[in-house]
């Protein structure tokens, strides 16, 4: 029993006793179990060389497909974080998605958000959806709204390579800049027949 207890403790050292461990596990959700068992990996963001304030990853979502225009597609999850600071307009490169065959890139869901901290009027922080009107903090320390904030997959250089950019701008007055942190989380559907690689460059 002592050996068994030590074995369990050695495997999951964050728990104080096997009993605590059972109760704590019962209170967890299924993705957590899967992660502990090594069935899913937490994404590891990779910093972009050309844009060190951006870090991202793109991985296929296991056991998830969708059909678009009669074509069976795999789903890829692009996640990342971008810190915007010290400017009134930003173009941040996240990474390049290279497809074995050119196709329209379909972003089928978007859970990205914009974080702003220490808001003087509202108080506290804010998490708003990625888009025009997202709340940021300007260089005077006031809440402000962006004019434009969007993901910009761009294949204008090479037809089967989508360079993923985050664009943001706000007209706040001469010399006024804005800061925020953007969490990127989108699902992209790509036909099953196409192979995909992602490089943060």
């Amino acid at each position, binding site marked *: 029993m002592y050996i068994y207890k030590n074995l369990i403790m050695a495997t999951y050292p964050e728990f104080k006793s096997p009993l605590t461990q059972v109760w704590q596990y019962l209170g967890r959700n299924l993705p957590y179990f899967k992660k502990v068992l090594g069935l899913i990996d937490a994404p590891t963001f990779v910093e972009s*060389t*050309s*844009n060190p304030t951006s870090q991202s990853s793109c991985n296929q979502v296991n056991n998830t497909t969708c059909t678009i225009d009669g074509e069976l597609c795999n789903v890829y999850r692009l996640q990342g974080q971008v810190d915007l600071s010290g400017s009134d*307009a*930003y*173009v*941040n*490169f996240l990474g*390049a998605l290279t497809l*074995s*065959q*050119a196709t329209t890139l379909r972003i089928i869901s978007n859970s990205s958000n914009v974080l702003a901290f220490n808001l003087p009027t509202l108080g506290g922080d804010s998490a708003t959806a990625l888009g025009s009107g997202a709340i940021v903090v300007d260089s005077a320390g006031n809440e402000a709204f962006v*004019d*434009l904030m969007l993901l*910009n997959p*761009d294949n*204008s*250089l*090479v*037809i*089967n390579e989508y*360079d993923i*950019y985050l*664009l943001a*701008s706000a007209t706040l007055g001469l010399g006024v800049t804005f800061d925020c942190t953007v969490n990127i989380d989108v699902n992209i559907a790509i036909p099953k027949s196409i192979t995909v690689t992602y490089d943060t*460059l």
Partner: protein
Amino acid sequence: MAETRKIILNDDYGNSLENFALEGKCECFYEKTDGSSEKVLDQALTKGSITAELPAIASDISNVRYKIDLEPAVAYKSADVTYSKDQLRPVEIIPVSAKKYTKKEKIEMIKKQITNKLASLRKK
């Protein structure tokens, strides 16, 4: 009598560049059996396809040569292909290869794109 011919560029993977933004020019030459050649088309390219009115192919023409000169900034290589007149089709596909960029070159291209996009954002 003229005939209508569409010229479409395709990349290495068979992807059509028909509506893909490109810059360059497309020339077409009729090569005659006596070895001489006549330029019948010299048209600017703004995308990967053009539709041109070309002279009908006379009996003394042996080959049709297409010369695609793309601007250095374009990520595809220029092409120079010759078809015998028997191979000609109303829609002609010209293969162009994507340039192979090193990681460093691609990063430079990304940086230029960032500069261009930033300028567009500030104009808005």
